[in-house]
């Protein structure tokens, strides 16, 4: 009889543990100076890596442990459950999360485009994302992609949203596009074989597509975002409140690291090459990386409005005044 009670008890406890998982988030962090940070293994991780190497975080009494997460939503989920303190995410997954009631706060800018991007004649100079049509398939502009198949690395994420906007702005209907999820290597190959009409690619694969002679239709990131921060360092909504010193220290150190990376681009490129295992020449030939020194809430608002315009969100997410953490 006891066994049965025990079994029932453990089932109930399991249920409680599953559903009440969020309750203990942040517990145990207290005043430890060790921060776990999720990155997604892209070239712009160079700034935080350089910051760690140069001791900017140590100066703030912080020990940073980075780990690569599969994708931004996974990082956000990990930050929410307390497995990560801080994680990298572009603004679009962040807004998707906020729209579903995930409690998140922006600590600092991770990467983005420099001032004046919107006025650039060739935005692909700064945009590490690109939209390419297969060479010779007759597609010349984004609007030609109506009803065609276009590959993206993930659905409802940055590439899809920015390409949809490029198609809309060009007079096409993005609702008719057949989106395909493909990893970049498969996307390049499928483009070559004509299995897809166009591919949304991130550097260094966008550089390869250009080298292979595929038609560059758009620099969707730069056209969508203009200048400002796109990649963000984000924590759960309670992190900064519970760890004000760690949060403020992180923000000071990361902006110092961002500034250093901008000023020492060669060193940053070396670091990107080392982190991503991509040939240095390929990175150098691609778009210039830029690490902003602030997050302008207006930029997030603009993305918010675009997501509604494109139908990815039903209504705009209500953004708190303290969405961007103020380290002062």
């Amino acid at each position, binding site marked *: 009889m006891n066994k049965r009670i025990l079994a029932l008890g453990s089932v109930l406890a399991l*249920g409680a543990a599953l559903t009440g998982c969020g309750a203990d988030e942040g517990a145990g962090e207290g005043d430890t100076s060790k921060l776990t940070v999720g990155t997604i293994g892209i070239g712009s991780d160079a700034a935080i890596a350089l910051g760690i190497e140069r001791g900017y975080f140590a100066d703030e009494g912080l020990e940073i442990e980075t780990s690569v997460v599969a994708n931004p939503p996974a990082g956000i989920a990990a930050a929410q459950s307390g497995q990560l303190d801080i994680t990298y995410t572009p603004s679009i997954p962040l807004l998707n999360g906020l729209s579903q009631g995930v*409690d998140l706060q922006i600590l600092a800018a991770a990467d983005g485009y420099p001032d004046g991007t919107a006025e650039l004649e060739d935005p692909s100079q700064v945009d590490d994302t690109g939209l390419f049509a297969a060479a010779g398939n007759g597609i010349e502009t984004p609007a030609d992609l109506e009803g065609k198949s276009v590959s993206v690395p993930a659905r409802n994420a940055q590439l899809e949203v920015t390409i949809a906007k490029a198609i809309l702005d060009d007079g096409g209907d993005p609702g008719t596009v057949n989106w395909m999820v493909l990893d970049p290597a498969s996307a390049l190959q499928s483009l070559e074989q004509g299995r897809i009409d166009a591919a949304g690619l991130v550097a260094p694969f966008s550089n390869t597509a250009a080298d292979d002679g595929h038609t560059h239709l758009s620099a969707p990131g730069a056209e969508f975002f203009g200048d400002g921060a796109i990649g963000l360092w984000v924590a759960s909504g309670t992190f900064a409140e519970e760890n004000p010193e760690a949060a403020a220290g992180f923000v000071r150190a990361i902006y110092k690291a961002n500034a250093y990376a901008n000023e020492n681009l060669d060193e940053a490129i070396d670091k990107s090459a080392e982190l991503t295992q991509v040939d240095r020449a390929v990175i150098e030939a691609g778009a210039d990386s830029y690490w902003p020194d602030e997050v302008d809430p207006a930029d997030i608002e603009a993305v918010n409005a675009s997501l509604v315009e494109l139908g990815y969100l039903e209504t705009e997410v209500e953004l708190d005044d303290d969405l961007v953490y103020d380290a002062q």
Partner: protein
Amino acid sequence: MKRRALNTVLGVGAPVAVIAAWWIVSAGSTNAFFPPLATIMERFQALWLFDRFASDVLPSLRNLGIGYAIAVVVGVVLGFVIATVPVLRAMFEPALHFIRGIPPVALIPILITLIGFGQEMRVTSIVLAATFPTMISTIDGIRAVDTGLRDVCSVYRLRKHERLLRVYLPAAGPQIAAGMQVSLQIGFIVMIASEMLGSSQGIGAMTLLAQQSFLAADMWAGILLLGFLGFAANILFEAARSRVLAWYIGSKRQERAA
């Protein structure tokens, strides 16, 4: 008899208790990743009954059905051939165990390279993964055929096809069925995994999309649907098995009674 009634009550009661506990504990949940069960059920109804049934559930099930059917036929035939032709067995058996050791999901990127990312890739990946359990249990089943039975075949001078179809196949039947059941489960797993790339169509693709868009209730609804489908597939399988192998189940029962 009393024991059996009690078992039935427990079998139905325990899951109901777990669901009730889930319902009550999750009722006030504000955690974005663990929504109340009531919300999940609402989304379940909105998504699967029957808005996306034709567009997502049916394609997934069709892929599974076609892939599984091919896998079973190929698995039994190949298993039969390998088990009965000693030269082939010597040639292929070690390689089979090597290939079987590769997680089927790891083959999907290669399949995309070879045959693209359409429905045929999905079916092929199910076939590749689900063939092996059936094939290997067929080989084992045939090899385990009682030597007495073999002798009887010789004494009665049964012809080759009679031996195969009327003696060996039925004798190996219970083991083949066990392999087919494993194949079904693996087919299910690969059905979901194969939808992670390519067009966003299918139960697995929908569930993954929901996860990446933080639509937790939709994600849970997808997981529940997968659970129900797996459960239903297993019930169908058991029903078919007890029909086809009625003689075997009956003989086991008699053995136990004796």
